[in-house]
């Protein structure tokens, strides 16, 4: 039991009723509209729930996850003729049995049933094929990871460069700060629509610019229509839109570094690089951690750009996890499938933020 010692500061503020009452409205709403739906998604991911279905919902355990994450490896040996020699096609490449002979109704390979070819490589005369049960999910997963892995360092780095430019003592520098930040306040939907004009394959502004500076040598590219460029196009636009946000966070970090440190460095005759390396960068460590965490989380929720610009195509090259979660849960009314992606995404983000926290804590 608490003794009634007059510990003024502490006991003055120990008011459970007032505390809960003041907190309650916000917490109830958060529970109802954020934690509740999240727990629902968690629950649905273990069922076969659909938005509208004549059949009652059943619990299916981990089947949704097995379905999404199922991968198999198949080593194909080249076809041999009766003498045991490798059969080769006209160009001298060995011929292999078709993958579908293993994945369709083959009693010897039940674990590969229904899988599709994801990617493969040659191993001596053999061909190794990696199969996935849910190819679209796998593409969404790898695209999202690639997107995060590129956007996080690139956007953080460019934002730092911009912040250093803006931090110079020049007349009118605030005008440039205002302009660089401007895309942040524009809706990502509006930005995505505008950039469709920039990336257009025939009359796009980007093609015209490249053709102009190469004196007509450049062949127009359909940036959003080619599987090899579409994700990069979305990535470049996302960096363009978001970089001003993180520039401002860097800037606020830069301005916490005491001017006296720079003056001392000047007296010792430090070069601009040495000043950055030994004064600026150490002073930015906390900001760097924060920026990396924020960009990572924002990059994982890649959705509107894909929805407006490509719908995941061409050839699933711009699928993302959040886009697939919405596609399945909403467009296809497959709530269980969409929820399972949400749960995986949550676990992924959680794991990464814990890792980031751990790594940055070690250094301090």
């Amino acid at each position, binding site marked *: 039991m608490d003794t009634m010692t007059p510990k003024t500061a502490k006991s003055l503020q120990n008011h459970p009723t007032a505390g809960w009452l003041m907190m309650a409205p916000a917490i109830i709403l*958060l529970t109802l509209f954020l934690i509740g739906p999240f727990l629902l998604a968690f629950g649905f991911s273990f069922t076969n729930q659909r938005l509208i279905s004549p059949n009652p919902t059943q619990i299916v355990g981990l089947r949704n996850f097995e379905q999404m994450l199922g991968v198999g490896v198949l080593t194909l040996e080249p076809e041999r003729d009766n003498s045991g020699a490798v059969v080769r096609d006209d160009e001298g490449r060995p011929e292999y049995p078709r993958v579908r002979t293993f994945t369709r109704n083959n009693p010897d390979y039940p674990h590969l049933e229904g899988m599709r070819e994801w990617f493969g490589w040659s191993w001596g005369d053999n061909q190794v094929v990696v199969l996935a049960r849910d190819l679209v999910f796998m593409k969404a997963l790898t695209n999202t990871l690639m997107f995060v892995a590129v956007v996080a360092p690139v956007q953080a780095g460019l934002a730092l460069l911009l912040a250093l*430019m803006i931090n110079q003592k020049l007349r009118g520098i605030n005008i440039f700060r205002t302009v660089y930040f*401007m895309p942040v306040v524009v809706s990502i939907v509006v930005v995505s629509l505008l950039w469709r004009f920039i990336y257009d394959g025939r009359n796009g502004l980007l093609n015209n610019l490249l053709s102009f500076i190469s004196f007509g040598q450049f062949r127009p590219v359909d940036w959003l229509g080619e599987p090899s460029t579409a994700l990069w196009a979305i990535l470049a636009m996302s960096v363009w839109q978001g970089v001003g946000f993180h520039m401002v966070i860097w800037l606020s970090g830069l301005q916490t570094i005491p001017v006296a440190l720079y003056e001392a460095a000047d007296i010792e005759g430090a070069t601009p690089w040495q000043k950055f390396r030994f004064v600026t960068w150490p002073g930015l460590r906390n900001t760097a951690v924060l920026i990396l965490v924020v960009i990572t989380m924002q990059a*994982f*929720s890649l959705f509107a750009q894909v929805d407006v610009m490509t719908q995941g195509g061409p050839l699933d090259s711009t699928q993302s996890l*959040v886009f697939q979660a919405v596609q399945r849960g909403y467009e296809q009314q497959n709530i269980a499938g969409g929820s399972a992606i949400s749960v995986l995404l949550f676990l992924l*983000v959680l794991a990464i933020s814990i890792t980031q926290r751990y790594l940055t804590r070690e250094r301090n």
Partner: protein
Amino acid sequence: MATVAEPNKNLKTGLKYLLLVLVALVFLFPMVFMVVSSLKPDLQLLRDTSSIAAFLPVGDISLDNYFAAFRRAPIGLFVFNSVFVTGLTVIGSLFLCSLAGFAFAFLEFRGKNLVLSIVIATLIVPFETIAVPMLMVVNTLPFVGPNGLQWGWLNTYHVQIVPFLADALTIFLFVQYFRDLPKELIEAARLDGATWFQVYAMVIMPIAGPVIATAAILKFLAMYNQYLWPLMVTQSEQFRPVMVGLQYFFQLNTAWGEVMAYLSLITLPVLAFYLFLQRAFIASIASTGIKG
């Protein structure tokens, strides 16, 4: 004086400005293209993309696209809906989240730290991933309004407002700001017999201007630019906000001039607002990063 160094320094300054201007152009050109294109007839708009004319108000310039856009869609209604929903949500969330922030920052009670860490953990859930389960939740909720008790929240204003009244970021901003305020302020008011709500309303909120501005701006941007949720919950035109209104411009034959006019109409007010309050906008983003 250093006569030799002077021209060198001028050149260096000139180069710095050149770089700054080039980067500025990279950030400006899509918006310039949008506004300029909104003034051109479709054929000219598409033809001009092959030259610098894409960014210049030249040729057949008029406001025709704007008039056509207003004929095509009830833009006034969409703007009203957006302003109404955004405004109420911003005001409501400032009140509820500051109240919760006050409790977290100043009051001690059992379970506080656990609740606060759950609130902060919700920051890592992207909204889009819980949108569908949330749709099912709001679809089953009752609401007492002017027409009596109704079940299901679809096609209403409150379905666009109530779910966003409380959010972790806003609560977090208030907690962070309140924690730095001197505790003596509160103790003095409490000893004078003020209730906790009086302390909140008459002592703390009057000095919370900076964090209120920050939270209001961030919430405003998030709400005005919302896309997926209003798309899901407003099947009837009456309640649609401006971002959903975009659909009206993408029918069989897209009239790009009208699209550009509509995009300009829904973007320029926000940009004007931003230019007017740019210091506060930038300070608000910066403050999310001060503590790390």
